[in-house]
């Protein structure tokens, strides 16, 4: 078959490159993730049960420590400035659960797709690749909002925790937690694809947070060096700020330093997440990782 040698003009497809198209692509990633999430029904039980039974162990332990007549409570109030030890523990353990779940779900989201085979399909499209992480994380965030909401209801009803304080301020604290937690999640997602292994990373981080961030105790009780480490973990500020606002009735001025720290961490971790993703993408292009499993 003879082949004509003429100048080649690229033949266009139906793809467009304008900004609305990119927004639509981002929205499509989000709706796809959310639709698929809804179709696995087991999450309902998980969201209802775990908020309660995980803190329960610590709460009952604290109850034992307080003593039948509350004689241990005096020491607690002196150490923390807060009377409601159940609320104190609940805030800490819930933050721990929140970041634990995010790290796991966002962290394995890309690897999951790789194992199923759809990661490659996504990578073949002209869509901006970071939007895949953004979209599935947005879906995960909705799940977490439900989780937090249900936790709040369950603690108020079952444990009689009284959350005082300004709800708008509490909302602000939660909003400022999001960039750090999800930035870490993005970082994990990229590392997990590269290492093909998730558990080690997640266990490490959740162990570190458990030890240093004061989930059931005031950070001030830690030895000096541990307090230093705690100061470098955004979860420490999340827990402290939430406690101050919801249990201590603090106002904006009182939590401002913590919020500033959270904002700083947020920017840092989002940047790290974005940069590590780019690194992973370039590396994957060299090694052809995307299509493997």
């Amino acid at each position, binding site marked *: 078959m003879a082949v004509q040698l003429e100048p080649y003009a690229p033949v266009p497809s139906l793809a467009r490159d304008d900004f609305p198209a990119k927004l639509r692509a981002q929205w499509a990633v989000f709706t796809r993730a959310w639709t698929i999430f809804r179709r696995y029904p087991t999450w309902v039980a998980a969201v209802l049960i775990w908020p309660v*039974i995980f803190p329960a162990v610590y709460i009952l332990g604290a109850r034992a420590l307080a003593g039948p007549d509350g004689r241990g409570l005096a020491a607690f109030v002196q150490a923390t400035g807060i009377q409601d030890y159940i609320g104190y523990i609940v805030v800490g353990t819930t933050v721990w659960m929140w970041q634990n779940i995010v790290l796991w779900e966002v962290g394995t989201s890309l690897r999951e797709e790789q194992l199923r085979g759809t990661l490659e399909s996504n990578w073949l499209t002209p869509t901006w690749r970071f939007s895949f992480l953004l979209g599935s994380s947005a879906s995960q965030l909705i799940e977490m909002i439900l989780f937090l909401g249900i936790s709040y209801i369950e603690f108020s009803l079952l444990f009689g925790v009284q959350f005082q304080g300004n709800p708008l301020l509490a909302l602000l604290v939660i909003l400022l937690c999001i960039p750090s937690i999800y930035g870490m999640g993005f970082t994990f997602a990229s590392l997990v694809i590269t290492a093909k292994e998730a558990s080690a990373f997640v266990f490490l981080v959740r162990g570190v947070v458990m030890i240093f961030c004061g989930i059931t105790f005031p950070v001030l009780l830690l030895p000096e060096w541990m307090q230093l480490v705690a100061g470098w973990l955004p979860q420490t500020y999340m827990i402290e700020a939430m406690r101050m606002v919801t249990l201590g009735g603090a106002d904006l001025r009182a939590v401002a330093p913590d919020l500033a720290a959270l904002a700083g961490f947020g920017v840092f971790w989002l940047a790290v997440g974005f940069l590590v993703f780019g690194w992973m993408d370039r590396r994957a292009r060299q090694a052809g990782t995307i299509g493997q499993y």
Partner: protein
Amino acid sequence: METTPTFLSYLYALLAIARGDWRRYWRYPLNAVAQVFQPVIWLTPVFFMGQAFSANGAAEGFAAYTGTTDYMSFILIGTALNNFITAVFWGMGYALKNDMDTGVLESNWLAPIPRPLLLVGKTLSSLLLTAITSASMLVVAGLLFGFRTSGSALAAAAAAIPMLIGLYGFGFAFAALVLVLREANSLVDVSSFLVMLFSGANFPVTVLPRWLLPIALIMPLTYGFDVVRGFLLKTRTLLPIPQEIGLLVFFMFLMVALGLWVFRILERRVRVKGTLGQH
């Protein structure tokens, strides 16, 4: 070659299983490290929480409930015992599920060993491994948090034995359930957490709300923990120690009989339905 099975040959078979499991475990030594340090990590927030409730290093509130101010030793004993419970309780069910998943269940099932004995064999090496990792954990935790016992360790261990044997009974029943349901994980996660919660591994059961306490009191595990702590820490026990030991011995016979019975029934059902090879 026809050979009639003797007690000795059964024993050799069990040892062979145990040796295989042992070797497989040590191929991933990081697992052992994780099993020693994971509990230590989980105990750290408990330790500092206790500090928050303590004045001058003594948890007076805790002492009012239990008879000792040493909450960490209390919890460490609970954690170590819980490891054994996990190994026996769920170990057989998991081993079964594993065999199902790797496809060897049918061939194992055809071996001329009484099936309950086969299941027991699967727990032998994990019992030894648990003893090693728990002891190591106690050493590490003891260094970090302090672990002091005042009573006789031997007496405590002897008292724990009927509890463990009784647990085998439950283990058989659970293993039978796994055979029928062909599923282990979802059932186990929440159940094991709840069992740990109600048996007093991490706190005296007397702090449970009034309406939940009966659940704890009908579980033999609760008395197991209580007796061991009674011996090692001289804590106030729910019932006098001789009575609790009596209860444990009674439960031991009951659970083993019950467990074997459930196992025989469900196992026969599986044979009739022919679902052994599926997963």
